């Protein structure tokens, strides 16, 4: 018997992103299969966040293609709002809507994008808050929640639309150290539930234990990619070694 091969759900093909003369992305090719956690590491300015933001077209790549579940999302006339529904994004600074409760944050897109009734949206929203362990905070406003709780609400907000892929842009970088764990726990749970995830982060220990692929980027290029054991324990490229040595100190 052959093992069932998971299908690639995200294909990035020769992606370039230029700001004037500055090459934020310089020919990136990447593939993620359903249920995999891809972990992007690299020095700041290496293009990790830019890559992530191209994947839901918050940035428009200069050239190259991105296929999500076989569909080219870099096409000119594509309906971005439809595409983005299928791709959840979590930001470094949470970006919760401060004028809405946790429940309001999680249900807004359900009601205004998917057109669900308030009741239906709240059922889904509360279930997602339950998933991140915050159903008892549903009626709290963001400023009444800790940073870790806010980020978990932001994850629930993205999950509510049942995305095919979740993108995490340094989800724990703005958190106090003691709050990082609760967010990583939620992410680990997501991974176990089979979510496809692309994560930009500096949490190397999390990467070692949860990632399927680790991608090391520098200057807009992928320097080295492979399973965590290879990247962390036996990096081939000199740059990777130097970066990891820095990161460990």
């Amino acid at each position, binding site marked *: 018997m052959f093992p069932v091969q998971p299908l690639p759900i995200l294909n990035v093909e020769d992606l370039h992103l230029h700001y004037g003369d500055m090459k934020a992305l310089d020919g990136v090719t990447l593939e993620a299969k359903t249920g995999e956690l891809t972990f992007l590491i690299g020095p700041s300015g290496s293009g990790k966040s830019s890559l992530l933001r191209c994947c839901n077209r918050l940035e428009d790549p200069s050239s190259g293609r991105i296929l999500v579940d076989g569909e080219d999302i870099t096409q000119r006339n594509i309906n971005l709002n439809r595409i983005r529904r299928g791709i*959840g*994004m979590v930001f470094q600074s949470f*970006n919760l*809507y401060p004028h809405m409760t946790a429940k309001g944050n999680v249900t807004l897109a359900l009601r205004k994008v998917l057109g669900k009734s308030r009741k239906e949206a709240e059922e889904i929203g509360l279930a997602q808050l339950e998933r991140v362990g915050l159903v008892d905070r549903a009626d709290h406003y963001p400023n009444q929640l800790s940073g870790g709780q806010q980020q978990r609400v932001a994850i629930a907000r993205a999950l509510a*639309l049942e995305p095919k892929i979740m993108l995490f842009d340094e989800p724990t970088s703005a958190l106090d150290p003691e709050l990082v764990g609760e967010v990583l726990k939620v992410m680990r749970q997501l991974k176990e539930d089979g979510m496809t995830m692309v994560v930009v982060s500096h949490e190397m220990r999390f990467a070692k234990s949860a990632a399927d692929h680790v991608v090391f980027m520098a200057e807009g290029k992928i320097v080295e990619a492979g399973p965590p054991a290879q990247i962390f324990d036996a990096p081939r490229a000199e740059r990777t070694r130097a970066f990891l040595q820095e990161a460990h100190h």
Partner: protein
Amino acid sequence: MTRSERFIDTFFKYDVMQQYWPDILKGLFVTCQIAVLVVVCGLALGLCLAILRSYRFRLVNLCIIVFIDLLRALPPLVLILILYFGLPNVGVSLSGYVVLWLVLTLVLAAFAEEIFWAGILSVPQGQWQAARSTGMSYFKTLIYVVLPQAIRMTIAPLTNRTIAITKNTALGMVIGVGELLNQATTAQSFAGNATPLMMATIAYLILFIPVVYAGRRIEQAYAWRKR
């Protein structure tokens, strides 16, 4: 006549009050009416212009900026006189009431646009990105995410500006609108006594103090604690 008697006789003469209070009341009603129309139309137009401006169409924005800068620079009285005395010469006759309403609405819209626009700009980019990343359109993001935050930040300057411009309804006097001040000055010249002016003063206070107070309350209610 003692000094205090003379004072009361000049500003609070009972007979004059009794005779002219219906006129003052009529004026107050007209002032209220124009004020409400100006506030509603001016704020609505200002908000629409700010929304339009956020789409950043070059030519449209240029027009908006020219419009608001002109209206903010000119004294409202100049515009009122031009429209009331100038337009009939080119075949457009507007009543004093309409001219007053139109000019004050446009002036308020110009100031309100600038305030709303500053509010929209002050909402962090992350709010836009978060909303857009959930598939919300530009317009929906503006309506449900950005404007509710922007408007909260603008309540204080907006209230001040609204009161300042609404008080200009008194300019209606020079083009014969039967508003409060006009009624009062007419009554004053008939009676040969300043009591009607004092009555108008009190009427203005009755009209605007609650607005000032309401503005402060709204401001406090919406000033949600910053993170």
